[in-house]
């Protein structure tokens, strides 16, 4: 009898993942529960490790671009932009104004598509199944637009060092403008479905509370941080691309629970829509690749077979990378849908990066999971995984 009692009193160790459907990939959590209360939560990562940072060391700067697509595979455009900005900072070049507007536009489209995926899956995890297809209906539109733009839907590789890969078409702009007209009403639809739903409120309000101070100590970023009442948005604090030329608000939540982070992301959807609209209206004519970019990106194709120097340049750029790479190190951070994505590049003067370190938001957010989960119920672990918006491709790199 004593033995049985002892066994009952011991906490139960539970493995959540790596194949659990609501861990958004291959996240494994080792949870110790007492009854239904989580006492200890330990995340294990690395199931999707592909060695992106090491791979990039053996590649030229342009060649490493498709690798960044596969970090956060639901918002590959922003990863590309972050990488390109880091390399541009290293080389001291700047994209022309039209390219900046296009980049801002597509970055916000990615934010919308990423948040829609988050909304759909997060709601699905918490039992609101209807929102999923509603969110995917609009996401499909954006992915179709990406397809017209660059020929790929998910892993786009569209931005280039010093600009973008090809110009936007009139069809793209018209369709995107139509999207911005319709989208706010669609956000209203999602809100009708779950905003005040009593089950949704019970599952999200007061769950996974983290204070502003603690959030900063955990180095959270993005909407996860802003939901805790910290006013920090890289797009405002350190503007890159065309973010200082457009107007938008930064949504802040004060309670720091799952519901506030949800409200923040819903408002971000509207603000992103606003940014896209302004970008379309302001889109100027002009170059889409920087004039000094040919030192670093491929020279114009129509000259390659006529001009001998260009052809030599073309060959050396592809086989050896840029020959005039400066020495030094640079850190460049961008606001991606998940949070702060930073690229730390070290160059030793050869055509390949000596070291590329990626500061990925998902990795930091996963490390903060114990702080969110411990002391809560086991069912709320799922809500917490959803609310930090983690993509394991980026976490494990």
């Amino acid at each position, binding site marked *: 009898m004593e033995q049985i009692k002892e066994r009952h009193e011991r906490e139960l160790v539970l493995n959540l993942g790596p194949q659990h459907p609501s861990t958004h990939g291959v996240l494994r959590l080792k949870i110790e529960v007492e009854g239904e209360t989580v006492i200890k939560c330990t995340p294990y990562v690395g199931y999707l490790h592909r060695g992106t940072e090491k791979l990039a060391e053996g590649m030229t700067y342009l060649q490493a671009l498709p690798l960044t697509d596969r970090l956060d595979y639901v918002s590959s455009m922003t990863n590309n932009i972050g990488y390109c900005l880091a390399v541009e900072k290293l080389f001291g070049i700047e994209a022309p104004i039209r390219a900046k507007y296009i980049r801002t536009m597509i970055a916000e489209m990615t934010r919308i598509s990423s948040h829609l995926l988050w909304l759909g899956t997060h709601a699905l995890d918490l039992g609101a199944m209807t929102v999923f297809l509603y969110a995917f209906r609009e996401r499909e539109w954006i992915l179709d637009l990406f397809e017209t733009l660059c020929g790929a839907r998910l892993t786009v590789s569209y931005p280039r060092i010093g600009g973008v890969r090809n110009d936007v078409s009139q069809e793209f*702009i018209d369709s995107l403008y139509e999207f911005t007209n319709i989208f706010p009403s669609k956000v209203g639809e999602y809100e009708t479905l779950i905003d005040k739903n009593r089950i949704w409120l019970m599952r999200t309000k007061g769950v996974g509370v983290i204070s502003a101070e603690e959030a900063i100590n955990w180095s959270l970023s993005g909407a996860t941080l802003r939901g805790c009442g910290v006013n920090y948005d890289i797009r405002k604090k350190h503007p890159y691309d065309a973010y200082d030329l457009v107007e938008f608000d930064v949504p802040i939540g004060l309670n720091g629970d799952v519901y506030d982070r949800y409200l923040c992301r819903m408002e971000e959807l509207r603000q992103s829509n606003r940014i896209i609209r302004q970008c379309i209206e302001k889109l100027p004519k002009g170059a889409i690749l920087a004039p000094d970019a040919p030192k670093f990106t491929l020279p114009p194709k129509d000259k390659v077979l006529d001009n001998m120097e260009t052809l030599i340049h073309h060959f050396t750029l*592809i086989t050896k990378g840029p020959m005039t790479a400066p020495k030094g190190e640079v850190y460049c951070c961008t606001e991606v849908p998940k949070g702060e994505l930073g690229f730390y590049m070290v160059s030793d003067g050869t055509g390949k990066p000596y070291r590329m370190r990626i500061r990925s938001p998902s990795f930091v957010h996963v490390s903060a999971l114990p702080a969110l989960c411990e002391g809560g119920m086991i069912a709320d672990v799922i809500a917490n995984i959803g609310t930090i918006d983690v993509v394991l491709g980026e976490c494990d790199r």
Partner: protein
Amino acid sequence: MEEYVKIVTRDRLYKDEMESLMTKFLFLEIVRGMRLTLKTMFKKPVTRRYPKEKRQAKPGFRGLHALVRNPETGNAKCVGCGLCAAMCPSKCIYIYTREGDNHEKVVERYEIEVLRCVYCSLCVEACPFQAIALTETYDYAAFSKQELFYTKDRLLKNWDDFMTEEKKKRYFESFWGPKTSFFRENESQATFKGKS
């Protein structure tokens, strides 16, 4: 706080006690949600019944590879410079060349391991001769690894099968870059044409 900050936290969900009570007892928020879902019953479905209904890929889609056939000689345009293989991030292109009878370079084998390809189209951008293309085909799943190992003949056949006249032109116009026009302003660039 700066003026761009927008506080989204809601202290109260409803205007007053009355509305709160009404919603609680009459399930108003659920009724509203149900009304929205009921409305969609009379709309066309947004999903596609995939194997029956196939979706046409958009122009310039990056799908299955093809080697461009030179209409004059009837052989591949590829000269075997190896730039595509050097550029490929996943190293899935294999090129073997040899010396021909008249001391020219002959591409003996040109193989692409499609399973390893990441469809970044950097090979297309690297090629100075417009000799390789990504077609608009996307459904080519196979049962064995061997079937997805494309040799030169199969790649040439892809070109004949999937690239008709207008597709060829459209493909190279939009995706073989960068071009000189990318570095300066030109009249045909797309801009916003006003609210219509």
